[in-house]
């Protein structure tokens, strides 16, 4: 029987708790602000004997992901966590993990990239890894970060998927804020994630020997491996939904790859990922009380991107604002904007759409900024010109 306890804790503490409950065989990690307290808490669990994980301390994130790749190929359930420059340092191994189809689960505390140096929240690090073949989840709250971590194990290890999952939460805003959350009992989580029995483990001497990641040069199967990877991440969309429904039935919290607020009849909508969705919803609620038909669409899964769901949700809107907490310098907008706009391309009826780059390097997402976005959308819906495709929201 599933029992939950309610507590006040930070996002990082809850991610570490979820990791302990999922009981990885191996964790290889290197500390970096604002991820540090995840691996610190987890190391404490190992020291206390509360989880039986081989905890590998390494000299860099490059080594952390290398150790994760080795351990996962050997047949272990593997987890790690990183942030910002650490994620950037892992870049080549990120491709190796997905190319070798290793179901590693990694938490990322979303943080800006240097230069100039900055330790605060934005999504530049994750978006830099958007094409590495990892499944990418975003959490708005500490609760979602906890739930996503548990679901990630099932998604990654699903035989239709076998891909690494990056489960992300906003640096400081979600990692370090105390928030109210519910934590499931250990037995229920253990039963939900189950044991990991890989088919092609290097160290499984009960089966014919295998090797991973071999040379597949000219004339070799490299191209077909990539096609198989594409098919796997496409298949993961259905797995994410079914795992989400299953966890949702146990914990009694809703899960959707997108989550709409007021979207049923919204004329003006904000699309956001991560913690900002809460601020946008707060202002949307105020405007609804004044009779303005506004909505907020939160995207919880960025890879695979839920194109059809997003196009359906936004199809009836007059004007849409996409909030991007990262840049794609030289592109026609930030990463989220490019996806959302592309999702709407096939629709006969398309809303006006504008991109707002906001909150880079942790710039505070004040409610007045959300009000300004809805006010712009109202003007656009009334026929005002779209203020350029890309607005730097709140920049001095």
């Amino acid at each position, binding site marked *: 029987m599933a029992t939950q306890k309610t507590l006040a804790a930070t996002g990082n503490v809850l991610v570490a708790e979820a990791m302990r409950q999922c009981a990885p065989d191996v964790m290889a990690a290197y500390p970096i602000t*604002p991820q540090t307290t995840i691996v610190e808490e987890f190391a404490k669990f190992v020291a206390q004997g509360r989880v039986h994980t081989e905890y590998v301390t390494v000299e860099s994130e490059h080594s952390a992901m290398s150790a994760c790749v080795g351990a996962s190929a050997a047949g272990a359930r593997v987890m790690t966590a990183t942030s910002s420059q650490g994620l950037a340092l892992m870049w080549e191994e990120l491709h190796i993990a997905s190319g070798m189809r290793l179901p590693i689960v990694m938490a990322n505390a979303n943080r800006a990239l240097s230069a100039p140096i900055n330790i605060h929240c934005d999504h530049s690090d994750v978006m830099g890894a958007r094409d590495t073949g990892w499944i990418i989840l975003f959490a708005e709250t500490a609760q979602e970060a906890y739930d996503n971590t548990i679901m990630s194990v099932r998604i990654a290890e699903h035989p239709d998927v076998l891909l690494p999952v990056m489960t992300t939460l906003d640096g400081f805003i979600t990692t370090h*804020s105390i928030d109210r959350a519910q934590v499931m009992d250990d037995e229920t989580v253990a039963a939900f994630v189950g044991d990991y029995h890989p088919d092609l483990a290097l160290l499984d001497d009960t089966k014919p020997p295998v090797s991973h990641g071999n040379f597949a040069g000219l004339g070799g199967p490299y191209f077909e491996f990539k096609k198989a990877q594409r098919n796997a991440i496409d298949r993961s969309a259905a797995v994410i939904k079914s795992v989400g429904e299953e966890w949702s039935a146990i914990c009694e919290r809703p899960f959707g790859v997108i989550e709409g607020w007021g979207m049923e009849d919204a004329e003006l909508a904000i699309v956001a990922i991560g913690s900002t969705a809460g601020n946008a919803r707060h202002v949307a609620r105020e405007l609804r009380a004044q009779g303005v038909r506004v909505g907020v669409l939160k995207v919880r899964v960025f890879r695979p991107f839920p194109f059809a769901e997003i196009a359906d949700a936004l199809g009836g809107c007059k004007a849409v604002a996409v909030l991007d907490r990262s840049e794609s310098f030289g592109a026609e907008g930030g990463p989220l904007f490019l996806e959302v706009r592309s999702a709407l391309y096939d629709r006969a009826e398309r809303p006006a759409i504008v991109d707002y780059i906001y909150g880079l390097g942790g710039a505070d997402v004040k409610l007045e900024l959300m009000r300004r976005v809805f006010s712009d959308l109202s003007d656009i819906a009334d026929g005002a010109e779209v203020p350029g495709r890309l607005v730097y929201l709140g920049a001095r």
Partner: protein
Amino acid sequence: MTTGTSDDVHEIRWHGRGGQGAVTAAKILADAAFHSGFAGVTSQPSFGAERRGAPITASSRLAHEPIRVLSQVTEPDIVVVLDDSLVEVAHTAAGMKPGGTLIVNTTKDAAQLVAAGGIGGAVRVVTSDVTGAAEAVGLIVGGQPMVSTAILGAFARATGLITMDAVEAAIGHVFTGTAGAKNVEAARIAFECTTAGGAHQ
């Protein structure tokens, strides 16, 4: 501009110096508020380059509904200052809502603080010798009195939003045994020595 959160939300801003425990205090407050019946509690630090002695802030929100706004508090109902040398230099009263409460760890009284400058408008000033409370029970670490728990006694007295029972329970979640008992005792002393510029019971 208003921060726009509703009247039912108590917005709190913390001011301290790096190493004083403002972030710890904010965390324990969130726990105590949760145990005092608030359904929505958040506390978030505002980190710069963390270093000892540098002025830092943290934000907390308490409400009877879940809170999903995680921006920094800029128009607080309550401001808590762990070091009275910050009252003016850190603009601790900036943006305070009229009728707001400014709680200061100090040996001065409210009139002296107001006379020293930096506090304008219709703000209720509450003082408490929190450092003295920590020293009285021997809460000294590395030569510094630890005020992060005792300040919650002053907070409970000054605002009435959280009970001392909840403060004591929340402290117990962070410190156990002798250390827990000392921290609780310091919070009790601070509660007792908290006095408002205008009488507050």
